């Protein structure tokens, strides 16, 4: 592996101030044994988030973004997977913590919302009762008081007629409404870290805008740190402070949101940004997609994982892209890139592509 695995602490990218990140993930590996061989779902991921900030993890299916989140949440089944590395949350290491203590943290210090609200709501129980249970599992508080708190939270997340909806079953609510219930349940114990895994993918744009505004508002009120997992680059631009782009189980670029959209240096990030149809630019005659398909996690290329789809690997002298895995290196302060191309060359490529995009047809 890279220098990161040999010297876990010195090679760790830290975005923002390096003093004391609230959450830091250090050389995280998650490996699943399968019939076809070992799958390195997450391969040496290191990142950190400051308190109250939002980090977006962007990637396509199979990039390892969800598994990274599940590992932080302690949701990866240790019987079917090997998890190594360190996850520090507010001075506490999570991976080697006994299961009991992890469970106490879940729902109290860390909460998660999912793409499908029915994955965290039980269809047989009234939503109010489920949220009351989430409160009473962690805090010794009376039923009536818990119910009052639940009602307040339901109103807070914008559920109309909450005093009646509190006794509704999940199936009686619309998709956007269920998403709000799930957010209410996740935030009821004022967690310090909220992990949102594609929280708006299943929703319509108008509802998506509501939910994103809601998360941002609650984040402002409670000072919650948010990790947002998504494939939608528009949402990232809207809400994230920093972005980690994942590909083939690794972080390939890590930077502040403005830097990443301004001058992305990894050809994959550039490809992603230029293959999205955009409403704010002139209409191109054709989109410029990344060719080929994402790699199979079982048979990853030997060199750079992105090389088979990269348009620029031949610009690197020798065969480094084919044979050597590039390291995640800092090209500018707080801008980490995993690529063999020279920094100046990468920047030039990004400028050229942006020029073409801005020029566009029609």
């Amino acid at each position: 592996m890279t220098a990161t695995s040999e010297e876990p602490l010195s090679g760790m990218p830290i975005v923002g101030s390096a003093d004391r990140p609230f959450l830091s993930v250090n050389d995280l590996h998650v490996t699943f044994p399968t019939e076809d061989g070992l799958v390195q779902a997450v391969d040496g991921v290191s990142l950190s988030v400051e308190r109250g900030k939002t980090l977006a993890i962007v990637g396509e299916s199979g990039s390892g973004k969800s598994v990274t989140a599940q590992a932080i949440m302690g949701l990866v089944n240790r019987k079917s997977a090997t998890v190594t590395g360190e996850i520090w949350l507010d001075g506490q290491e999570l991976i080697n913590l006994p299961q009991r203590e992890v469970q106490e943290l879940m729902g109290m210090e860390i909460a998660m919302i999912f793409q499908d609200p029915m994955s965290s709501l039980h269809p047989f129980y009234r939503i109010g009762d489920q949220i009351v249970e989430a409160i009473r599992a962690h805090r010794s508080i009376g039923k009536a008081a818990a119910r009052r708190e639940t009602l307040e939270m339901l109103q807070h997340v914008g559920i109309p007629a909450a005093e009646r909806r509190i006794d509704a079953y999940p199936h009686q609510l619309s998709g956007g409404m269920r998403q709000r219930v799930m957010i209410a349940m996740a935030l009821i114990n004022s967690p310090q870290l909220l992990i949102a895994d594609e929280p708006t993918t299943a929703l319509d744009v108008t509802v998506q805008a509501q939910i994103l505004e809601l998360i941002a508002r609650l984040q402002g009120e409670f000072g919650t740190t948010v990790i947002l997992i998504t494939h939608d680059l528009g949402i990232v631009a809207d809400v994230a402070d920093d972005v980690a782009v994942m590909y083939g189980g690794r972080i390939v670029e890590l930077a502040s949101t403005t830097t990443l959209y301004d001058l992305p240096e990894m050809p994959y990030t550039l490809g992603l940004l230029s293959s999205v149809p955009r409403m704010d630019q002139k209409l191109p005659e054709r989109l410029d997609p990344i060719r080929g398909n994402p790699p199979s996690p079982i048979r990853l290329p030997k060199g750079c994982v992105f090389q088979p789809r990269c348009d620029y690997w031949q610009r690197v002298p020798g065969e480094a892209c084919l044979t050597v895995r590039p390291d995640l290196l800092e090209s500018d302060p707080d801008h980490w890139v995993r690529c063999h191309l020279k920094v100046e060359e990468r920047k030039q490529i990004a400028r050229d592509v942006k020029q073409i995009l801005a020029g566009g047809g029609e």
Partner: protein
Amino acid sequence: MTNQTSDVLDVTDLRTYFPVRSRGLIPRTIGAVKAVDGVSLSLDAGETLGLVGESGSGKTTAARSILMLVRPTGGSVKIDGEEITDLSARKLMPIRRKAQMIFQDPYNALNPRHTVGAIITAPFKVQKVVPPGGVKKGVLELMERVGLNPEHYNRYPNEFSGGQRQRIGIARAIALRPKLIVCDEPVSALDVSIQAQILNLLRDLQKEFGIAYLFVAHDLAVVRQISHRVAVMYLGKIMETAPRELIYSRPLHPYTHSLLSAVPVPDPKRQAHRKSRIVLHGDLPSPIDPPSGCVFRTRCFQAQERCAVEVPPLVELAPGHHVACHFPIAVEDLPARAEVQALTADDPQEATPDVQIVSREEAADGAAGAAGKGRGAQEEALDEGGAAEEGVSLNKPRA
């Protein structure tokens, strides 16, 4: 109908209602969900019409009704000039050669027990068509044309990724050289990089074979990329329809404004400088009991008493630009921010929802200078096609 033109697809007043039955031993019909309620549209050869709307707007039901996959309750559907609503399943067979469909979910649209070859061969077998050079040669050519490796002829769908499966579905759809393909959210289940590949493929095929697409999608940026004209649906009705340049640069219906303002833009700088943001709180009303008058009035920042009484007809306000609204509003007249708390079934007496509006003047007072910058960014953002080049009234300075 009066239409004698060469339209590939001509839909007039299409209605698809699903009965709502009471419970009990003898269920009675007690109402209807008006999934599609009076939709008219037409398509020329080689043209793409984007049909957009939120879930529950009836766009998918409209698409399925047009191909008689769901039998419509009323109205007329003509494919290549032939009325098909009253045809039996057997008589529809020859029509299916002209009109095909691509589905959203490439995982469920392909039979997992059939090889790719068998799947793409099926249309030829069913319709008893032999392409020049034989069926097998035709299938191999199709595979090559849509970007599949012909060597994979004997593989099964589960051996392919989502994007490749969608290519199989496309090969099957174009096998008989149809004049019309109804695409129901064909790229929404795919990864971003693959999405662009499929959109390019669809566009190339259209150029090559002159296929007309009815492109159903909820992603406005995707629809903009592929469509020549766009129709916006809400609760079973068309709210606004216009050529692409107009609908994105000069929309007039409050609902279209709301949709466009909700789309996130992948650029943090522009995102912060959005000129106007319309936030709709609450959900679509139930289609079983739609609002009186204009169906959108319960979530509309422009709603007034009249909207609760009178159904707005779809009127042509500019050439090719039809709008169903009593109070259409131009881009330059939008407020800086509008928050709408939708009416729910709980407040039946109300005619108009609770609306909070921050006007541009107020916004400008609040952040002197910043608003001016914002306006510039928005104009750039809307810069598109002819409308922008003429500058139109977007550049009109406002006091």
